[in-house]
């Protein structure tokens, strides 16, 4: 039912030219986002989440060393291969993006109001100056900025990070997009501000039917926001599941590991934080077979040899040789292991 989807990504492949050859940063990622849906793309840093988000907007074109292939269909229109000129009509007005570091995402030497205006200026509308600044003020008020007239005249460094992220959201909304790609939008913010920004995103989804692809490494954020979860590891999507299923019974050992790694005050003692031991391999040193096998507590000999194919189990799509065992609860992870750290 691809035509029901707002966004369909198929076989997205991103490779990077290095001195010695090419390294795959994202390998054959496929997923959909439905209208009004919040999909969370989770994984540790270095797994390829951010690149995936940027590739959707065609933002990797500008790096000569990156090669992107596969298909990105938005609202029935194929975006891959479009020239920059046509992509510009998509960016901002159909798909918008907000960034991890909200201050760095704004030009430090240009006033905030002008930066919002730039995002509105498209679509050939000619309006008076005061009309435009009235619209900007309304938009800023909408994202919870008090005293918008003052803010518009300020520079990014004069404004708090949380406020900058609200401005980032205002910029994203200025073109009235259907899809918002939010790349770690709260990671750089204080906990209380995090909650406010997440609430704002959820509210916009409810009001405008905005679809959101939320990229995060924070499973707390994912649990709070997601309708559906995509787990990415070493450039591959290893599990896709409705959020309700995922947080009850993640079927991929990596997905389960991520959930376990969330510190829980009730059971965790210091030094017993069950982060997954090891680190995401670099693209050039991708292990053979299942890329996760060096870190996997339940690996089989087979795992180092054969890459697991994605398997549909109920609502979940899992790429793991032991997915069935995981789901039937015959495997327990890490609990039997010695404390880490």
């Amino acid at each position: 039912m691809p035509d029901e989807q707002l966004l369909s990504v198929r076989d997205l492949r991103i490779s990077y030219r290095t001195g010695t050859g090419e390294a795959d940063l994202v390998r054959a990622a496929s997923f959909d986002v439905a209208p009004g849906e919040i999909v969370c793309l989770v994984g540790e840093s270095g797994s390829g989440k951010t690149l995936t988000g940027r590739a959707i907007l065609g933002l990797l074109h500008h790096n000569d060393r990156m090669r992107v292939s596969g298909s990105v269909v938005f609202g029935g229109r194929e975006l891959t291969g479009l020239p920059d000129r046509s992509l510009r009509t998509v960016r901002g007005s159909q798909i918008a993006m907000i960034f991890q570091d909200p201050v760095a995402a704004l030009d430090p030497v240009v006033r905030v109001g002008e930066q919002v205006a730039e995002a509105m200026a498209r679509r050939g509308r000619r309006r008076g100056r005061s009309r435009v600044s009235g619209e900007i003020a309304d938009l800023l008020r909408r994202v919870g900025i008090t005293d918008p007239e003052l803010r518009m005249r300020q520079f990014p460094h004069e404004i708090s990070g949380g406020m900058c992220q609200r401005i980032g959201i205002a910029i994203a909304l200025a073109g009235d997009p259907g899809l918002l790609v939010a790349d770690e939008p709260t990671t750089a913010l204080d906990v209380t501000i995090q909650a406010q920004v997440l609430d704002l995103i959820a509210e916009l989804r409810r009001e405008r039917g905005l679809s959101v692809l939320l990229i995060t490494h924070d499973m707390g954020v994912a649990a709070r926001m997601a309708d559906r979860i995509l787990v990415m590891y070493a450039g591959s999507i290893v599990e896709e599941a409705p959020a309700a299923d995922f947080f009850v019974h993640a079927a991929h050992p990596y997905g389960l590991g991520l959930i376990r790694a969330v510190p829980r005050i009730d059971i965790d003692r210091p030094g017993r934080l069950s982060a997954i031991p090891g680190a995401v391999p670099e693209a050039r040193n991708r292990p053979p077979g299942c890329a996760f096998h060096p870190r996997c507590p339940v690996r089989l000999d087979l795992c180092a040899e054969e890459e697991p194919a994605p398997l549909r189990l109920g609502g979940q799509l899992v790429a793991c040789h032991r997915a069935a065992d995981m789901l039937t609860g015959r495997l327990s992870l890490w609990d039997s292991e010695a404390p880490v750290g």
Partner: protein
Amino acid sequence: MLGVVVRRVAIGVPVIIGVSAIIFFVLRVLPGNPVQVITQGAPTTPGERHDIIVEFGLNKPIFSQYLSFLGNAVRGRFGISFATRQPVMGEIGSQAMATVELAVAAMLMTVLLGVGLGVVSALLRDTWVDATIRALSLLGSSMPIIWTGPLLILIFSFTLRLFPANGSGTLSELVLPALSIALVTSGVIIRLVRSSMLEVLGLEFVTALRAKGVPEAWIWLRHILRNALVPAVTLLGVQLGGLLSGAVIAETVFGRQGLGSLLVNGIDEKDYPMVQAIVLIVATAYVAINIVVDVSYAYLDPRVRTQLAR
């Protein structure tokens, strides 16, 4: 903003006093006898020479000479030229405009060449155009005006007959001397504008601008260039010294009137008051222009403005 100016002036004053001391004492250490200049080499009796020495105050202890020079200079009085027996300020006043014209023209060309070629170089990075610009900029900034001046004359006036080789007064006579200075001073600006634009190009906000659908040309001109100009302006302030000394040399090479030729003659003739006045005026101008540069720097970078406001 006023605070910056006050602070800069507070730093500038000792600098100017230092310059005045150096030029005053160095002049008097150099070989040569000013009395001969004053008498124009005409035969004199010891009595006449003594009168002259007294008239020009050359008999007083050197420190009190220095102090009275400084005291008069503050009031804008630089004394009588040894060579012409006229007040030096009169002659400087009549020649200063020619130098100011040249310096301003050279400055404009430096900015035009530096920013223009820097932008082209960054836009066409890693192409032959970029490589050529970078090679030429390196060549230009390492060649002295004594060499590029005649070269420009050879190419543009003798061969192409586009601009006159010397003289001062008309605009077309200004082109070659200004260009010979700008070739030296724009080189580093070109390279700095290029490298800082490429640095800005890698910043996150450029991706964010693309993500909101802003046209690439606008991103480059309004955002990347604007950010890259911040360091370039600072460098321009540093280049001012080169600009002023360049003007002095270019005036001699191109046979132009101006403070440069006046200064060179003054040194030749041991005309202490003339040399002191010119050096002090140029030093003051240098400090003053640097204050202007600092203020425009703050204008370009709002972060600096905020810091200064505190």
